[in-house]
């Protein structure tokens, strides 16, 4: 039976065709994606990595809400110019608590993987509310509503932390119970700033060789 007559069977049986497509298109994923997803070594946190505090988590979820990763990457490539510009290159273990990952695919604005500690909180507040007040050429949108909204105004921080706890983030029940209190009196601006200040923290915490 040659190849064409073999194919004749496929294109005469819709069930066979469906099965054929499913098998052939799965191979790549099974060989290339599945081993990585199942290998715990690729999901393990690096030594200095702390889980996001409730305020930082709230800030991260706002960062996702505003799609900041459309323009800001969080991934320093191991290239000389890039390491000089941003700092140590990114390691797998730094992202163990990132659901979803926020590496981005486009750098309209600068990379933020090492932005934590680079500017003061006051700078971030000013910059988020009016980017052109601190960087005249900036094309970043202003986010005036961040200052007007209370952090966790939907009262969902405990539910969110429980979901992450289910996924294996090391939050204790006490952490979750205490979270709403910690966010009281905070604005979304404080939350986003706290998140930005946490970026690259584990790298700074690690002992330098």
């Amino acid at each position: 039976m040659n190849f064409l007559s073999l194919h004749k069977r496929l294109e005469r049986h819709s069930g066979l065709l469906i099965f054929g497509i499913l098998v052939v298109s799965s191979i790549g994923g099974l060989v290339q994606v599945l081993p990585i997803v199942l290998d715990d070594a690729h999901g393990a946190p690096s030594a200095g990595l702390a889980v996001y505090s409730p305020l930082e988590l709230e800030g991260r979820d706002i960062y996702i809400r505003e799609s900041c990763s459309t323009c800001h990457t969080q991934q320093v490539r191991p290239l000389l110019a890039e390491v000089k510009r941003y700092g140590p290159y990114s390691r797998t273990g730094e992202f163990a608590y990132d659901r979803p990952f926020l590496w981005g695919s486009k750098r309209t604005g600068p990379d933020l993987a090492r932005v934590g500690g680079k500017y003061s909180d006051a700078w971030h507040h000013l910059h988020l509310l009016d980017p052109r007040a601190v960087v005249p050429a900036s094309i970043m949108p202003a986010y005036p509503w961040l200052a007007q909204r209370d952090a966790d105004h939907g009262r969902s921080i405990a539910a969110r932390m429980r979901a992450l706890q289910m996924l294996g983030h090391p939050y204790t029940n006490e952490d979750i119970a205490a979270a709403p209190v910690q966010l009281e009196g905070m604005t979304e601006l404080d939350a986003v700033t706290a998140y930005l200040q946490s970026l690259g923290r584990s790298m700074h915490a690690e002992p330098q060789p």
Partner: protein
Amino acid sequence: MKYEDRIVTAFTGCSVLWAVLGMLAGVYVAAELVWPTIDFGLPGLSFGRLRTLHTTLVLFGFGVSGLIATAFYSVQRTSHVRLFAPGLAWFVFYAWQLTIVLGGVSVMAGWNAGKEYAELEWPFDLAIAVAWVSFGVVFFGTIARRRMEAIYISNWFYGALIIVVAMLHIVNSLAVPATIGKSYSLFAGSQDAIVQWWYGHNAVGFLLTGGFLGMLYYFLPKQAEQPIWSYRLSIVAFWAFVYTYIWAGPHHLHYHSIPEWVQSLGMVMSLILLAPSWATMVNGIMTVSAAAKKLRSDPALKFIVLSLAFYGLATFEGPMLAIKSVNVFSHFTEWTIGHVHSGALGWNALITFGTFYFLVPRLAGTQLYSARMANIHFWLALAGVLLYVLAMWGAGVSQGVLWLSLDELGEVRFSFNDVMAAMKPYYLLRFIGGLLFLAGAVLMAFNLMRTFAGRRTVEIAPPAVPAARGLK
């Protein structure tokens, strides 16, 4: 028994509407990069949310509606039967359009799963899964009841679209819901990145490439009144395409914190992918060429043939950008945006426009309202996409070289802000290119609307062919 064509008309109409709205959102975000204050401090108009709206509307509104319309049209005609379960087909229609409307509103309100091209939150993910599986039931049900022995090639591609996109969507959307509008991905960090680009790259592969190749394989031979040039080539190209595409995702993660072997494998498979991609292009071009002597002057064909040229560009540029030594310059720059749009505008949009110029007069049982308008659209589209792509090439190559440039002392030579400021003129040029392209789409919407306004009731019955024997 007549073909069920009202649903084709409904999907086509929505597709045109989403094309105009989605491209409008695109032009608006392009303008925001030039004049950053035109969001007027409104969260819904803010760049990040509006850009998500743009990709959602053009991909899932314009693209998928157009694909379902053409799939329903062609599967009936290549199977010689009426659509299976028309009621379910109408459910697909309402479910899909409602998902786009509400999903679009949710994105502007700030619901976002944070994964590129899969930003809709979990309630919408569920709705999409249900609608998509129903689409598959209608499509494969129609094929199962066909009165021809062989399943025509266009249906293989539509079939691959349905099956693979279902697989990608379900796996990539796996998440633990925390509230109605917020969920967390089942995968984290590097693992999430690999799953996401397995999804993201193959959404491009099986939706924007495979799905639209289904469109090509039906409408091109139909319009040229010429059978496909090589049957054997289409078989080889199809299976090579289905097998190879899946592996290429990690080229989106070159030099990232994922294992080196995954990157290299992704690069090699991306290079191999050029073969099946171009085999299909050759098949298409040769089909038209074989019919060149008897072709009528037809605006629809102009669009389809030019779309093949951009298909050739995009499927060559992709593997080239997957080479690590090229990618090191192009990654994270506007070059990527230019590449996406040479495919999305030059290939997907142009072939869809051409198909609609062919389809709508037939659905309406009348002539196209204005061929002259369609010709103007052709030039607006060509100028728009060229302007867009060249602006992004200029911007991307500049970013690539400036970001990596060192001075004599080995320090970075240019500050990020200076490079960013240098992009402004290109953003302006890209905005103008997008505006031209949008103007063409608006012209088409008007033209098709007028065409449809002059419709006569048409119902077409399948040809009287006895059911083939030995059908399973």
